[in-house]
C-alpha cells in the first residue's frame, strides 16, 4: 500500500536533450519504485508557473525514469532550460496506467506527444511476448522521434506524417485502414481527434489515454472530469487510460 502512495519526489536530471523540433528527452534519477505499470504520469513543478505540468512516463528502469515532452508554453519552456545535475520536483504516482493485455497481439497507435507513454508500454508488452504492430504519427519529419527505438521492439512499425516528409502521408487511421489493422486490440495516446478516429474505426477493444487540463492531478478538484458509460471519472485518477467500451466523447 505505501508503495502505491502519491507523493512529492525530487529527481536529479541526468540529461535534458533536444531530440526533435521543440521536443526534449529528460532522463531523471530518483525514486521510481512506485512505477508499477506504464501509462502513469507525474505532475512536474515549474517555478515559472502556478500549476504543475502533467507529463507521462515514457520509459523507466530500476533507478531512472525518462520523460519526452514538447515545448508548448511557458511551463515546458522552463523545463527545457533545466540543465544536467539540476533537480526537479514532481508529484508522482498519478493516474491508473495501462492494463497489460493478455492477448498475444497488440496494436500500438501514437500521435505526436502521445507517443511517449506508449514506449514503456511497448517494452513491457514485448517482454510478455506480445506481438506488436506499431503506428506512429507525426506532423512532419522534424517532429518525429523514437522511431528507431520502436523499431527495436517490433518489425512492424508504420510511420505517418501530415505532410509526408516521413513515412506515409496522412493520419494513423489511414494506416489502420490501408493495412487492415482494424481488428487488433489496441493501445493509443495522442490528440483527441486521433483518439476519436481510432475509437470509431477499430472493431477491436482498446485502451485510450486521454488528456485534460488539470488543476491538481490527484483527484481533488474535478477539473478533469470525463463522462464514461460507468459514470463520471477523473482523468487524473480513474484515467488517463480508459477502455474503448466505457469511453464517451464529450462533444
Amino acid at each position, binding site marked *: 500500500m505505501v508503495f502505491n502512495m502519491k507523493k512529492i519526489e525530487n529527481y536529479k536530471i541526468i540529461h535534458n536533450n533536444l531530440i526533435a523540433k521543440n521536443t526534449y528527452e529528460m532522463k531523471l534519477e530518483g525514486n521510481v519504485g512506485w512505477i508499477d505499470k506504464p501509462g502513469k504520469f507525474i505532475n512536474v513543478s515549474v517555478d515559472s508557473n*502556478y*500549476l504543475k505540468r502533467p507529463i507521462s512516463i515514457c520509459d523507466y528502469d530500476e533507478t531512472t525514469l525518462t520523460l519526452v515532452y514538447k515545448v508548448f508554453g511557458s511551463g515546458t519552456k522552463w523545463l527545457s532550460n533545466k540543465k544536467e545535475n539540476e533537480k526537479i520536483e514532481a*508529484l508522482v504516482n498519478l493516474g491508473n496506467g495501462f492494463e497489460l493485455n493478455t492477448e498475444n497481439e497488440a496494436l500500438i497507435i501514437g500521435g505526436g506527444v502521445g507517443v511517449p507513454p506508449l514506449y514503456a508500454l511497448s517494452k513491457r508488452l514485448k517482454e510478455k511476448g506480445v506481438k506488436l504492430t506499431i503506428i506512429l504519427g507525426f506532423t512532419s519529419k522534424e517532429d518525429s522521434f523514437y522511431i528507431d527505438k520502436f523499431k527495436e521492439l517490433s518489425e512492424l512499425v508504420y510511420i505517418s506524417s501530415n505532410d509526408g516528409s516521413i513515412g506515409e502521408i496522412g493520419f494513423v487511421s489511414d494506416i489502420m485502414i490501408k493495412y487492415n489493422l482494424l481488428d487488433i486490440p489496441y493501445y493509443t495516446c495522442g490528440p483527441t481527434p486521433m483518439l476519436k478516429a481510432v475509437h470509431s474505426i477499430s472493431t477491436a477493444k482498446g485502451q485510450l489515454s486521454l488528456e485534460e*487540463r488539470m488543476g491538481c492531478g490527484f483527484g*481533488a*478538484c*474535478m477539473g*478533469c472530469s*470525463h463522462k464514461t458509460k460507468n459514470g463520471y471519472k477523473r482523468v487524473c485518477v480513474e484515467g488517463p487510460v480508459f477502455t474503448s467500451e466505457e469511453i464517451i466523447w464529450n462533444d
Partner: protein
Amino acid sequence: MERLKVKLNNLELDNPVIPASGTYGFGYDYLDFYDPNILGSISLKGTTLHPRFGNVTPRIAECHMGMLNSVGLQNPGIHKVIEEELVKLDKIYHKKIIFNVSGFNIDEYVECVRLLDNIDKVGIIEVNISCPNVKDGGLSFGSDCSSAASVTKEVRKVTTKPLFIKLSPNVSNIADIAKSCEDEGADGISMINTLIGARFNLKTGKPILHNVTGGFSGPAILPVALRMVYEVYERVNIPIIGIGGISSAYDVIEMMYAGASAIQIGSSNLVDPYTCKKVIDDLPLVMDELNIKKITDIIGRAHK
C-alpha cells in the same frame, strides 16, 4: 495545541485551518499526504439537491499566481452525499465537517438545509450563494442584498445548526450583503468565493474554458479577500471564515488581523497537497516569531 484553538459559534476547532469547498472533494483525496484529523474542519465539495456533471471541459485555466475553474458544481446530489460520502468520511475523519450547499432556486437551498439539520456530523452548514459558474443560478443570489437576504431567511427557518453564508466577491458592496444576511439570522459569513475571470488561447483566440469565464482563485486574489473581510468585519457581529489566496501561515495571520475567526485554504491545496499540514505546522512558529500567544488574540487586530 491550546493556543491554536478557535471557535465558530458553538463549534470549537483545534486550529483555524480548513480546506475550502471544492478543493478537498469529500475528504478522501488527501489520504496519501497526511491524516485529515489534523485539520480544524473540512468544507466539503459544494453539493446540490440533484446530481450534476457540471460544465464541459476544459474547466481549468492558469493565471499569474492563480487559476480559473469552471467545474460547475459537479456532485452526486445531496442524497448520495449524505448516504454514501458522509458515511465513508466518518471512518477517516472524526470531527464535525462544514457542509457546503448550493441551489438554483430558494426551494433547493431550503430542501438541502432541511436534510442536513439532523445530521450530527455536520457542524456548520455553509450556504454558497456565490458560485459564478452556473449561468442560471448561483451568481444572482449573492449579487444583491435582497436575494442574499431571502435565501438566508428561508434556510434559517429549517435548521438550528450554525448557518454560514458564503459570499461572492463580484459585487459593489459586500458589507451591505453581509449585513443583510446577518439581519436574517446568519450565524456567520464565509468569504470570499472566487472572482470571475477569463483567459484566451493565444493560438486560436478562443476562450480557454469551455464555459468562457470561470472562478479565479489563488494567491493573486489575497488582497481582495483581505479587503473584503476587513470591510465586513466592520459591519457585522457574527464570525467570519476568511477565504481567498491563503497559502502560508503568514497569510493566515494576516487574514485574522483583517477580522477572520478561522480561515479556509482552497487552490493552494491543489498546487501543493501538503499545504494545510504545512500551515498548521508553521503556525506556532510564526506566532512565536510575531509574539502572538493565542491565535484568538489577533482576530480583527487591524481594527483596534
